[in-house]
């Protein structure tokens, strides 16, 4: 295991932010800490980096107890949401920083830094200052800076949080590819489930300071441990006391076995998909169908239909409230 | 520990440079009770110095406030050639020695200077009289109101004023109802700084006033003159009064200073 976190508790004042958190991060994996804001994921990442001290519990990095080690001695790479660029240093000197601290020979530093700048596509920007870079470029510089010291683990705190949607998507794909090239154990924090599913090979869902579920993206999406995880990972709707994904529902104009009667209240066309909004026993629900299927059914508001979960659909029974 | 070391150095330095000297004066002033202080400050010369100081300061503050608001609005809301130059010139008085200020005014407005001579022939005396002291005080305190108002005016933006115009307000109405309330704390801050600077000016006033006891003597000049004449109690009492004004200024500016 690259990182083992055991029974970590942490409070800010009287507010607990991490409660009995234990996770294992496999060597070479790309793990996402996913959860709503205030769920404790950034704090957990900072505890791993040594930027916060846990109240109780331990952190092992590569088998060594790092709980009381200063960040300086942990050999982790940390990438901050707002980049934490050294404003007074050029891109080159930013990336070289950790190597200069380690007193590596000048020629080695130069070679290593240029390699990394090539890796993050910033070789043309070496002599610029951070203020002259775009957000995405700064973030890539911060990544190269963290990678320069060959860290045992790479930690990224909402790495794409401050970027606009387009750049975010590009960097996501790029991070995945980078990880496939470099293979350093990587943990990143995100509140965007799409980002976690697309990039990570393991997802840790954190909410209210607790680990709700750990698994591969498919496991977490298809077999959510509880309604919270199911809701957080994707759209859900409620049919007959069960939580179901709206794309996992069969809809038919005629009554069907095991079906529930519903009234169509509105039909919303969103490009290739169509959202059919329903009333079932006085409650709102919705179903996602393809456009051709919707055209075939020819639904109008006011129609009565029958809905039921797909045979293979995952659904979670909601405990009676 | 480095932390405690630095803290000790900083506090010790401030203690011996600021706190102890100022504290000692206050302690010496009140060493023999309140009565001698009251006596020293109610002597005719002291009362007269108070009056002169107030007159000069109030005129100077009034002039600099009008100039300050006008120039700040000009710099922030209008564009014209030479704006950068004007902006730089406003800070010029900060770099000029008070004595040079006094000399400069004497060279223009003195009895033997062309302008001063002309005014003298009309019966207006500037140097060695109140107008000259006001001019000197205006000079040294000139940037304070402008510099307090400009950043707030910038932050305020002109959208609200434009909104007022679309609602039918005239320029004056928009200024009085929108702009002025928006800058009132910054303006108050600038006026307090300006007033304090005006009450406490020494060098420039020393040069242009001629230091005539019971005529053009301000409170700061009174302190110096009493001290040179070995009347320590009066000098200390007046100094303490001025120090008190300074402390009140500090607290007021602390209260009014634009936050963040």
């Amino acid at each position, binding site marked *: 295991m690259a990182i083992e976190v055991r029974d970590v508790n942490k409070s800010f004042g009287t507010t607990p932010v991490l409660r009995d958190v234990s996770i294992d991060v496999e060597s070479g994996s790309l793990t996402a800490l996913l959860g709503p804001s205030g769920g404790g994921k950034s704090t957990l990442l900072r505890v791993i980096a040594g930027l916060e001290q846990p109240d109780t519990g331990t952190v092992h990095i590569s088998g060594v107890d790092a709980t009381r080690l200063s960040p300086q001695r942990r050999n982790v*790479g940390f990438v901050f949401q707002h980049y*934490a660029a050294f404003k007074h240093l050029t891109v080159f000197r930013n990336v070289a920083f950790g190597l200069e601290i380690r007193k590596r020979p000048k020629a080695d530093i130069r070679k290593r830094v240029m390699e990394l700048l090539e890796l993050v596509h910033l070789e043309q920007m070496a002599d610029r200052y951070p203020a002259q870079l775009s957000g995405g470029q700064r973030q890539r510089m911060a990544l190269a800076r963290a990678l320069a010291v060959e860290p045992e683990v790479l930690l990224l705190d909402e790495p794409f949080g401050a970027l606009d949607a387009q750049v975010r998507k590009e960097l996501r794909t790029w991070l995945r590819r980078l990880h496939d090239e470099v293979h350093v154990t990587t943990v990143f924090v995100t509140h965007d489930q799409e980002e976690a599913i697309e990039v990570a090979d393991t997802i840790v869902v954190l909410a209210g300071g607790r680990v709700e579920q750990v698994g591969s993206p498919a496991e977490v999406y298809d077999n959510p441990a509880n309604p919270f995880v199911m809701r957080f990972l994707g759209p859900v709707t409620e049919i007959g006391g069960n939580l179901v994904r709206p794309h996992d529902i069969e809809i038919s104009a005629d009554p069907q076995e095991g079906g529930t009667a519903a009234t169509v209240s509105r039909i919303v066309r969103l490009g290739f998909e169509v959202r059919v909004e329903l009333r079932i026993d006085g409650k709102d629900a919705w179903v996602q169908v393809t456009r051709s299927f919707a055209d075939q059914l020819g639904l109008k508001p006011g129609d009565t239909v029958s809905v039921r979960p797909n045979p293979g659909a995952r659904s979670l029974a909601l405990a009676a409230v | 520990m480095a932390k405690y070391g630095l803290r000790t150095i900083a506090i010790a330095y*401030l203690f011996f*440079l600021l706190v102890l000297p100022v504290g000692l004066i206050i302690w010496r002033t009140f060493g023999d009770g309140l009565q001698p202080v009251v006596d020293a400050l109610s002597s005719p010369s002291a009362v007269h110095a108070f009056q002169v100081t107030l007159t000069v300061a109030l005129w100077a503050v009034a002039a600099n406030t009008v100039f300050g608001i*006008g120039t700040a609005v000009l710099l922030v809301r209008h564009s014209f*050639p030479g704006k950068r130059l004007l902006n730089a010139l406003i800070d010029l008085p900060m770099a000029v020695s008070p*004595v040079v200020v006094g000399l400069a005014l004497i060279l223009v407005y003195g009895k033997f200077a062309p302008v001063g001579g002309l005014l003298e022939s009309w019966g207006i005396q500037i140097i060695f009289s109140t107008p000259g002291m006001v001019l000197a005080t205006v000079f040294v305190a000139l940037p304070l109101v402008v510099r307090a108002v400009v950043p707030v005016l910038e932050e305020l933006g002109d959208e609200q004023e434009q909104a007022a115009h679309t609602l039918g307000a005239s320029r004056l109405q928009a200024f009085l109802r929108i702009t002025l309330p928006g800058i009132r704390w910054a303006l108050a801050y600038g006026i307090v*700084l300006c007033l304090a600077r005006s009450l*406490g000016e020494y060098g420039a006033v020393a040069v242009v006033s001629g230091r005539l006891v019971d005529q053009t003597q301000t409170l700061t000049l009174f302190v110096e003159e009493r001290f040179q004449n070995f009347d320590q109690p009066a000098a200390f009492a007046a100094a303490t009064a001025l120090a008190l004004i300074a402390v009140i200024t500090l607290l007021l500016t602390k209260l009014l200073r634009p936050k963040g």
Partner: protein
Amino acid sequence: MTTDVAVRPAPPPGPPGGGARARSRFSVPGGTALGLGSSVLYLSLIVLIPLAVVAWRSLDEGPGYFWRAVTTPDAWAALTLTIGASALVAVFNLVMGTIIAWVLVRDRFPGKAVVDTLIDLPFALPTIVAGLVLLALYGPESPLGINLAYSRAGVVLALLFVTLPFVVRTVQPVLLELDKEMEQAAASLGASPFQTFRRVILPNLVPAMLSGTALAFTRSIAEFGSTVLISGNLPFKTQVAAVNIFSQIEGDNTTGAAAISTVLLVVALVALVSLDFLQRWGSRRG
């Protein structure tokens, strides 16, 4: 008193809003012209014309006279003392001001808010009172037994008093705004606290430290009131340039006074222009 405003780091070179670099063919609207006219007239009558007359008067009797006025033994001694003492005071402020700003931002202790308020006291206190106060503690009747009256050390002490806030108040806001994550990033890259200070914090403070130092230097060059009492105005020993100008005015030698004044003005302007240059250099990196 309160020169507080001069301490704001990097005053905006030209307020935005009207923006627009002054275009040459630019018609100024009537209202603006009236305001601009009054403003410039006010500034000219009180500041610009009088200062120009000082410079003009200093050369009234030719450059030879100017040179002789500046190099009379007492004037020369006053000028060198002023510039030397101001340089010393500026460097001392650079160190102490930075330490005080550091303690005010990074340290926590009871009464910190009071200390923070006290820093501005020298700006608020009339200079003559500052001089009197220092003379009481460090003069012939010093309860501490330290007598600096009528000595150059006394002059330096008075200048240290009046210039205390400059470096503190320029460095403090920069230190407050400094991105903490930058330091955490340095630590996670293996830098020790000292390395983080030297390689990350200090370089980010240098422009502010130098601005504050330049302001303290300019103020020291110009200082008059606080040195009057403690220096005793001994020519060749403790008389600073401003006091020398004052005694020349008293002696009705206005041309000589104007010559020394001009030297002071030029030195101050050079310091301020370098300061502006430094600030541009500092903001180049954003």
